[in-house]
């Protein structure tokens, strides 16, 4: 048993969903989503038992490219994040009546296939292919099932595509160059390279362009808010919950160990950029009138902090970044889903038109409250663990980074609670707010459960990721 089966399962799932017809598609997709989650848990058990679940075959002879998948703790953690969120995202679509449902569910599964591939790939070219492949489904999801004016949406989505594609091409050039140096693109061969400093800088920033656009780190974020707003909620969840983690993961897996000297040289600049994102995202979020846009900017602030954490090049920074990636993945999916629940009832995303929901639906209000608190890193939630570790690592580098970065919690609390107040509290709304349905409630409860469980007991994830992070750190400090 190795990880290729997971990829095959997801790919077959996408095909099966497409051919099952519009009526059955959502159920078939959910089934495959759950099956892939089950399979990844099984793979995790095998991995913990010490089995080798990686896979490597030679694929192309010239240039020398291998079909190599490597499953260490870090990759498995990200794979589990993907396969856990995929069924949740599919389930969240049950309340929507998508036109051409077979296509959108197939695209969701296909996208999760590509993302799992990205997390597992251990050969530069294979990695690049999965990385690019994940772009195509989200492009169509956002374009065809999105909301708002079609022309504006088209502009936003095309901008997103061209931005990310442009960034990736520079990464490709870096890979082509690395191939010339190493004679192969296998991860371990690339780790072994000792490039001169000026070349490292060059490679480092070619990678940086691709990742900074994907994550996004300011000033490469301009595509983000519009796309998050225009995409259908399932698309926004895929983007914010998993896809931007591809960028953060790649920083740790590819960028830092391949060009460690450049990483050390530009450490302060990059941490600065990440923290600038925290401040900028928080301040812009304060002024948003659209609920989805507000969440988009809050997401920008959070990922800025995660990026800053990974660029500290300390074990705490890396670990905190990974923990926070997973925590943020769950919480942001929950928040966007809550926004979708409100939209289904009030047909609006404008915060000003909401309010007064609490009296009508106390259950939903409390669940939403918990998600809001989790997103501002209330102790005992998973986000607290992540954010605290990141801030601790920043303090080790320079106390002022930690202080400024810590603003994310304060500012976050301010804009999130203000948003909560305007959306949920106040005089009882004249329009009827129907209570959450079973599947909606189930999703929120599952997410909240995960956030609390790992908030109190983060050890399993910690134990899973730490050895591989330490291994990466050895390569960074070589």
């Amino acid at each position, binding site marked *: 048993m190795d990880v290729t089966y997971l990829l095959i399962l997801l790919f077959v799932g996408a095909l099966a969903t497409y051919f099952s017809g519009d009526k059955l598609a959502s159920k078939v997709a959910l089934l495959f989503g759950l099956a892939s989650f089950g399979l990844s848990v099984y793979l995790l058990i095998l991995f913990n038992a010490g089995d080798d679940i990686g896979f490597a075959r030679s*694929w*192309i*002879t*010239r*240039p020398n490219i291998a079909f190599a998948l490597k499953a260490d703790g870090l990759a498995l953690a990200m794979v589990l994040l993907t396969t856990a969120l995929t069924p949740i995202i599919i389930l969240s679509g049950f309340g929507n009546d998508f036109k051409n449902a077979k296509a959108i569910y197939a695209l969701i599964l296909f996208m999760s296939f590509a993302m799992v591939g990205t997390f597992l790939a251990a050969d530069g*070219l294979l990695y*690049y*292919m999965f990385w*690019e*492949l994940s*772009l*195509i489904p989200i492009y*169509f999801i956002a*374009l*065809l099932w999105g909301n708002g004016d*079609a022309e504006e949406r*088209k502009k936003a989505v*095309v901008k997103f*595509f*061209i931005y990310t*594609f*442009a960034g990736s*091409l*520079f990464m*490709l*050039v870096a890979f*082509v*160059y690395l*191939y*010339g140096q190493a004679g192969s693109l296998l991860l371990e061969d690339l780790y072994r390279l000792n490039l001169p400093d000026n070349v490292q800088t060059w490679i480092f920033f070619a990678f940086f362009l691709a990742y900074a656009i994907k994550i996004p780190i300011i000033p490469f974020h301009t595509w983000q808010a519009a796309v998050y707003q225009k995409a259908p909620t399932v698309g926004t969840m895929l983007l914010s919950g998993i896809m931007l983690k591809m960028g953060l993961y790649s920083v740790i897996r590819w960028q830092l160990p391949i060009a460690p000297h450049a990483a050390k040289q530009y450490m302060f600049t990059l941490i600065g950029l990440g923290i600038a994102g925290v401040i900028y995202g928080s301040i812009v979020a304060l002024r948003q009138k659209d609920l989805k846009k507000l969440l988009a900017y809050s997401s920008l602030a959070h990922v800025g902090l995660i990026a800053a954490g990974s660029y500290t090049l300390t074990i705490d920074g890396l670990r905190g970044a990974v923990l926070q990636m997973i925590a943020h993945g769950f919480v942001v999916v929950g928040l966007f889903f809550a926004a979708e629940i409100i939209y289904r009832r009030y047909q609006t995303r404008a915060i000003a038109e909401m309010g007064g929901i609490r009296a009508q639906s106390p259950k939903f209000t409390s669940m939403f409250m918990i998600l809001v608190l989790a997103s501002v890193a209330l102790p005992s939630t998973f986000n607290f663990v992540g954010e605290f570790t990141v801030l601790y690592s920043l303090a080790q580098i320079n106390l002022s980074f930690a202080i400024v970065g810590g603003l994310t919690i304060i500012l976050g609390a301010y804009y999130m609670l203000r948003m909560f107040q305007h959306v949920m509290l106040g005089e009882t709304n004249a329009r009827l707010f129907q209570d959450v349905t079973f599947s909606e409630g189930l999703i929120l409860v599952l997410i909240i459960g995960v956030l609390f469980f790992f908030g109190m007991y983060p050890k399993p994830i910690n134990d899973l990721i730490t050895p591989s992070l330490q291994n990466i750190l050895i390569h960074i400090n070589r």
Partner: protein
Amino acid sequence: MNTLIAIVGLGILCLLFEILNLRKAIIPMTIVGLLGVLGLTVSEFGDTRSFYNNMIIVDKFSMAFSGLFIILTIFIVALSHNFYQNQQSKISDFIAIKIFLLAGAVAMVAFGNLAMFFLGIEILSISLYILAASNRLNLKSNEAGMKYFLLGSFASGIILFGICLIYGAMGTFDVTEISELSGSAELPVWFPIGIILVTIGMLFKVAAVPFHFWAPDVYEGSPTLTTATMSTLVKVVAMATLYKLLTAMKADISPAFQMMIVVVSMASMTVGNIMALKQSNVKRMLAFSGISHAGFMLMTLLSQAIAASSLLYYAAAYALSGIAAFSVILYVCRNRDNEDITNFHGLGKTNPLLAAVLTGALLSMAGIPVFSGFFAKLVLFNQTIQAGYIALIIVAVVNSIISVGYYFKLILAMYTKEPNQERTGTPVLIYSVAVISILLNLAMGLFPSFVMDLLG
């Protein structure tokens, strides 16, 4: 050599069928015949052999490219059935000319003597002039044929002049002897001038900037199937021939010459892409995109010793996606008097299969992974970086980004606009050509080694 004879025989058979009143059998017979020729070519693949006092030299390079040309011609012939539906009485002429065009193409990659090379290029060009003007009641088609003929014969003249200068310098037309001489002695100045003139003539055929001015008008005016032929088959023929000419005569020595190639390559990519951005006629857009692809293929001339397999791969990837794209255009623009992008509105809803094929073809041309267009670019970039042309690669990367802009314009039109017309009928041949060519493209993307290792 047998390939060439068989192709010419097939062309003559085509004409005979008309006399014997077997018009309906022409297309099936030609396809079967071409498949037979393809089989013959594959079975003879291998050793280098020469015929008729070195007039023709058959080697792996010429065999592999001949195979590609034959496959492309099969597709084009298959598309002819629907395309010439209203001109059934002339079908044998159209098919026969295409077969002779293929004969010219095969001669062009298998020459051992510059006279043979010129003969090939003239057979190919004259067939094309006829095809370009073949819609004789249409003013635009006439204009296209005339333009192409005037400019094309001018280019042929330049090539001929170049060949004369080479003969003046070397005293022989034989390519092997020329390559022996060009390595050893002090070269007369006529030799590099001749090489440059021949190169310019070929760049005209490839439609590289600044010799591209004929391409958009001719592409737009010609009947769509002829445009498909020109932008897929003829372009890769000309590219392969140029490569073979320069490598066979070992004429890549001077740095100034390489500089010229770099400049032409950059200019072709940039001008082609920027002009394509503004086009609303799909045929014109693909013409400009073809110019930029020519720029990419020219990069192979910078690392001639090793680039044969990457040129083959790039040419195959580009031509297959071109055929797929053009077969969809043929379907969409049947019975229309223009190929405006509005015709494609809503194709994603009315005909998801063909819309998916066209999307795949465009993604391949844009160089998105899994499609072979991606590997083609990758291998090309790899070689060019190793040859040390970083600036060229950066221009190429920027151009790849620009190209996404117009390829996606078409994809957007198919999926986001409302359909504005009903289309009826499912022409089986068009469908199968579209699907088979995109599947071949995809297969090449999944197993690149298969093509890449052909030329050892």
